[in-house]
């Protein structure tokens, strides 16, 4: 009974993984497929769709915009996350639960609400929609993720190390710079990479808050309407998939090193 149950579970897991990976596996297949129609049967191998990407000027502009937005948003939300995570793991203060709750709310709020409410405020205040309005929205939704990642990094940190540094005459600021920062650095890098990846792919908020300059997902959305453009959209998706994978594997590697590093420091502290 148990063996049979286990075999059933394994088969289910295999089927589920196929379900999870189905879209991702199809993407490169159609990107290299020599046909204007995104459908089976396959017609042969081609690199034309990738070549087409190199010649599409609006795509390059959208890519530039996306890189600017994602870099600034990743940097700002990691800075916000650092403050929030440090306060949450090392300090107690009045209204802590409510304050942390407010900072984490975008995690469960439908993105359309974030997009709509920022749109209303920006237009009412008389500002124009530009890349900054998208950045503002992205920092809001990335900060909770950064806070979670950095909280793990901070809570793995041995408190004795800080106290030792202060006993040895370092100020709070120099302790932070010379002891804490190096130890949580991999966590910070992971936070920047995750925020960058989220911002790079975010569509709903960017769609509401983009003016004349668009980001990559907004550009992709505009292309999905034209069947002739679909194969090159698949090629673009493949490139983006490769980039995301590289970023995420690095983030995961750094995150693990972060926990190893603070664990090693902890072990040292116990002697």
């Amino acid at each position, binding site marked *: *009974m148990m063996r049979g149950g286990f075999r059933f*579970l*394994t088969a*289910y*897991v295999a089927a*589920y*993984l196929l379900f*999870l990976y189905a*879209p*991702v596996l*199809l*993407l490169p297949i*159609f990107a290299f497929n020599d046909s204007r129609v*995104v*459908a*089976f049967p396959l017609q042969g191998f081609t690199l034309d769709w990738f070549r087409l990407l190199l010649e599409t000027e609006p795509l390059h502009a959208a890519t530039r915009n996306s890189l600017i937005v994602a870099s600034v948003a990743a940097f700002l939300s990691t800075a*916000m996350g650092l*403050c*929030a995570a*440090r*306060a*949450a793991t090392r*300090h*107690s*203060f009045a209204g*802590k639960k409510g*304050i942390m709750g*407010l*900072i984490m*709310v*975008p995690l*469960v*709020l*439908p*993105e*359309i*609400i*974030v997009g*709509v*409410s*920022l*749109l*209303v*405020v920006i237009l009412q205040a008389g500002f124009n929609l530009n890349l900054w309005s998208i950045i503002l*929205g992205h*920092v*809001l939704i990335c900060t909770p993720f950064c*806070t979670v990642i950095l909280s793990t990094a901070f809570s793995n940190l041995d408190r004795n190390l800080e106290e030792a540094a*202060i006993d040895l005459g370092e100020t709070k600021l120099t302790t932070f710079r010379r002891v804490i920062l190096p130890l949580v650095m991999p966590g910070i890098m992971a936070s920047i990479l995750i925020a960058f990846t989220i911002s790079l*792919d975010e569509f*709903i908020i960017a769609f*509401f808050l983009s003016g004349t300059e668009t980001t990559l997902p907004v550009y*992709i959305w505009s292309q*999905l309407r034209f069947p002739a453009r679909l194969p090159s*959209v698949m090629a673009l*998706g493949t490139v*983006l*998939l490769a980039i995301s994978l590289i970023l995420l594997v690095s983030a*995961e590697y750094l995150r*693990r090193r972060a926990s190893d590093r603070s664990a090693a420091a902890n072990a040292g502290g116990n002697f």
Partner: protein
Amino acid sequence: MGAAAIVRGRWRFRLPSGLVLVSPPLLYAILLLALPIAAVVTISFWTQNYLDLDRTFTLANYREAWSQPVYRVLMLRSLAVSATVTLCTVLLAFPIAYFVSFHVPQHRKSLWIFLITIPFWTSYLMRIFLWKVILGYNGVINGTLIRLGIIEEPLSFILYNVNAVVITLSHAWAPFAILPIFVALEKIDRSLLEAATDLGEGTVRKFLRITLPLALPGVLGAAIIVFIPTVGDYVTPRLVGGPNGLLIANMIELQFKKANNPPLGAALAISSMLIVAALSLIFVRLNRHHLRDRS
């Protein structure tokens, strides 16, 4: 003595410095989240007059949002879709979380979790679009089934309707269901299960009486995390939903963009948020009672 003084000294210092430290993200959240939502609430009581807003207080937008059949149909359909997606996603995710927590060796677990989340870091729009390719009339599923001789005519009930929206959203939100359930299962004290085995409990009874009740908070969390945001999705219904698969978020988007009636859009957005929040609270309350009775 010295240590105590340091501890006390830091304690006195800590109260204000925690607030100072948290103030940048807090101010950011107040300025760009709390205030904007307050602004949406405010304009939902105003009226759009072609190019400018009439700022006299009115409930007309809410009256329209709650009485017009079209909005009611979209709202009910949204809730039904979100509830179905939540149910499917959580039911499908539970065995996976269980497998990773109970059958994968300790040192491989984080790798498995990483593997499960990878597909979700590819472009969101692209993933939805590829579901269209999979479910379509000449799509992967129909093509395969026809070639295998299982069906003769392509299945038409899987694209451009509510089913397609449910399938696509269940895929999109899978990791958000798997992770909380996995965390809850990981917290279960394995010695409880060993004790039950020693006392002669069978696999099924152990699962029903120990594992499932202890995993319930994670399942609950997963359900809420999936239910609330799916109500706000307007991309999936637009791409795979067809004319009868549109949801309330599409209407909100329409009012804010093309129809240029932000006050009505705001009233619809606030109404749907209130309904979703109320339903979530009721759901949590009901299950809290259930949890308390168990223990």
